[in-house]
């Protein structure tokens, strides 16, 4: 047997010839770089990747990847991707979208994709603002947000994307950050490995219309207080000196000082990706104003638990019915069951 040895591709092989045209300092650059960095390691032939994006700054992503790609229409990437995956389950399908594209105009497709659980990866670049239309509040903008369309402050409550995804029965929910490349790479790999819809929310800085929105979660001085990295099987610990832990009192999470209480890490909340109840509670660590008794924003895989996959079941059902009934010859379909002759 002939074995074909191919040179392993490099991140550069995934960069298209198109000039990248995001604003200087945009968080999208980092996301593009991390995707291009991990792709050679995913073990998928390059021609089997398909990127489907909607409309918005994020959705230009498709043009910059040297893979198959479709830059589609506003909000519909998830619906188009479902058709791509149903038609050809061998493709590795990646949806790229933003907070407006996925959660506002595309909200219906977002929830139903999660529910149906197609085996695709759904990256939502959340910058909490509409950027391509030059600065209006988005469905993830905080209440009171002053923008061009809300000069006196937004009066809307924002979506919490991970809570929404869990409510829509997502089988994989993760959050990462443009300014933490290593973390993002790890999450991207896990998203790819997960069978089913992998929803990855990426906090992405928009330097023009919503600068520093997430800096609290990445700046050295604040990140240890404001953010918590959750990892499967590990206790929830955060704080400047890792002195704070989260534990349960009944079903209520409470923050405890490990040093003061002398509590053992084993008695803290141990993160379990497969525990939906805990994931629901974790996803609700979401308040935007920080104070002493506020919980830190979780990053990492909030929930991952495989369940039946739409495209697999579609194929399996076809195989089962075919095995049972056999293919109907076209002439039989044309004639139907009941015919009569006229001479």
């Amino acid at each position, binding site marked *: 047997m002939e074995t074909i040895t191919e040179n392993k591709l490099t991140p550069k092989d995934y960069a298209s010839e198109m000039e990248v045209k995001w604003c200087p300092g945009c968080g999208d650059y980092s996301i593009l770089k991390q995707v291009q960095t991990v792709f050679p390691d995913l073990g998928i032939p390059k021609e089997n990747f398909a990127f489907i994006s909607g409309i918005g700054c994020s959705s230009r992503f498709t043009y910059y990847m040297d*893979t198959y790609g479709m830059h589609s*229409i506003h909000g519909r990437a998830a619906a188009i991707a479902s058709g791509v995956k149903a*038609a050809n389950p061998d*493709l590795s399908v990646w949806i790229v979208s933003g907070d407006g594209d996925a959660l506002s105009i595309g909200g219906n497709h977002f929830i139903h994709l999660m529910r149906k659980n197609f085996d695709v990866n759904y990256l939502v670049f959340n910058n909490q603002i509409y950027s391509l239309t030059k600065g209006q509040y988005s469905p993830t903008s905080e209440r009171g947000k002053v923008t061009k369309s809300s000069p006196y402050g937004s009066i809307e409550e924002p979506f919490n994307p991970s809570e929404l995804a869990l409510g829509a029965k997502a089988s994989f929910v993760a959050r990462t950050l443009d300014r933490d490349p290593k973390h993002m790479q790890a999450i991207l790999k896990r998203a790819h490995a997960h069978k089913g819809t992998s929803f990855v929310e990426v906090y992405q800085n928009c330097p023009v219309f919503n600068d520093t929105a997430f800096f609290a979660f990445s700046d050295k001085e604040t990140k240890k207080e404001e953010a918590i990295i959750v990892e499967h099987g590990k206790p929830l610990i955060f704080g400047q000196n890792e002195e704070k832990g989260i534990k349960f009192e009944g079903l209520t999470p409470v923050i405890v000082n490990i040093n003061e209480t002398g509590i053992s890490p084993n008695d803290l909340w141990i993160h379990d990706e497969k525990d939906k109840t805990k994931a629901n509670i974790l996803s609700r660590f979401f308040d935007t104003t920080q104070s002493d008794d506020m919980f830190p924003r979780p990053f990492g895989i909030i929930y991952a638990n495989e369940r039946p996959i739409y495209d697999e079941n579609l194929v399996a059902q076809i195989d089962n019915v075919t095995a049972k009934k056999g293919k109907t010859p076209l002439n039989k*379909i044309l004639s*139907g069951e*009941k*015919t009569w002759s*006229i001479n």
Partner: protein
Amino acid sequence: METVEKKAGKTTEVREADRVVVRFSGDSGDGMQLTGMQFSDTAALLGNDISTFPDYPSEIRAPIGTVAGVSGFQVHFGSKEIFTSGDEYDVLVAMNAAALKVDLPKLKKGGFIIANTAGFDKKNLGLAQYPEGVNPLEDNSLTNYTVLQVDVTRLTKEALADSGLGTKEIERSKNMFVLGVLFWMFDKPVEPTIKFIEEKFSKKPEVALANEKTLRAGWIYGENTEIFTTQFKVSAAKLPAGEYRSITGNHATAIGLIAAAEKSGLPLFLGSYPITPATDILHELSKYKANGVKTLQAEDEIAGICSAIGASYAGNLAITTTSGPGMALKTEALGLATMLEIPLVVVNVQRGGPSTGLPTKTEQSDLLMAMHGRHGEAPLPVIAASSPSDCFDMAYEACRIAVEHMTPVILLTDGYIANGSEPWLFPSEDKLANISVKFLDKINSDNGVLLPYKRNEKLVRPWIKPGTKGLEHRIGGLEKQNETGNVSYDAKNHETMTKLRAAKIEKIADFIPLAKPDSGKEKAKVLVLGWGSTAGSIKMVVREMIAEGADVAHVHLKYINPFPKNLGELLKGYDKVLIPEMNCGQLLQLIRSKYMVPAIGFSKVQGLPFTTSELKEKINELLVTK
């Protein structure tokens, strides 16, 4: 022709008739659709030509006994060719007072009414809003008709007295009694229906037996009772020889799509959201899993078309099916498909609009939306089916045009032909036209650069499937540079691309049949120019009038964008062009603006097809005026 004959035992007159129209009318829960279908199938099996028209309310179960809940099924059958479901009926089956009230106006003078007397009790009369104390069966208001009163409810109960079934189940069998009576009346056998019953209730033998018993009881009742003194004999029609089946438009559309998939070698994908009256296509295609058909019931109309766009991009023969309100929702995505230049078939089973409109009634009012309902310059092929069985041909054509010309195609049918049925001289597989599909599998330029928008002599770009090694590329809704497909905002390029996309659609005219008269000659005083489901009525009237010596012809358009190449020339052969449409003059606008001919419109927007008499009157009006 009418002959009278006596039968032994009972005096029965046997009338021979060329054509008969029967209207089954009852409450939504009375099983009139099934009864009508069984009657029609039997007539077709015995060689009659038929045309059916299910006419039902949009409420699934309107309050029992009310006018709103009346469900009708009309069948026109004969020993001659039948093109319409009939203007008026010869026989009206009225299961209750409301049914009589709704459907009496279209019963021919001298026609028969078979009335279920149990449906004319005080309660039913009240529900049908007859004035207190008025019963049309008793007040001599029906003297122009022959009224046959049958207590169907009681007779069914008696027939099933020892069946052990409950009142509810017995009640449900009463349509079979009526069907039995009708079979006797039209001298048709009960056996095909018994076979149907046995198959339908194979898991409930007691119900099968009860239905069979009731059906036979109805037949025997007709044979033995003195009130039934007339029997009709409708001989087999002289249809072209061959093998026939009965088919509705939606069913024909579904198998047309399957046939196109099999012949092109492409997997079939349907992305669809349920909507009346298009849903049966989704139902039908969903049955064909064993033929690899993938159906995705989408979360909304937009996802229906978008999933189909995704599937087409991935190399499937992709379809989305809908009706007016859904069509409106799909328009933005249609623009994307136009820009991507990928094959896609959009079936719009038209219904009365705008908005929710008349969901279960027919109309042809989406033609201009199909032509123009997209933002930007986005011309698309638009084709239309003219009868239930023609839905097969046009669905097949839609697929052929879509894949051979790399474009979304809109197929227009409507509620009338979608739900109506007729006998179909179905083709065999080898008689179907070839559909040629070729995916690009290597770089298509001399300098090693992929050109996704390089066009062939038909101005068609290559279809490139993700998964093809070495051809990775990006496409999208943004304007593209000619040939390379790269994003381009260049002013001149946009104009070039806009014109190329339009020219590609125009070019399809070279690959469709020329227009020719269906009836009449290429020169006449009046041309009746139709499209879509009006074909049957127009054909019937025009043929009749030609036989009477009128100088009239009929051309029926199946290809509306582009029009057949010779249409402008053909139209010049006629002094007057009459365009009857179930809208306010949409084809009229297209014909007038394209060919500058003073065509005359004839519009009807009542949710109902044209009657032959109203068409005839209009044509006569044009024939006598200068």
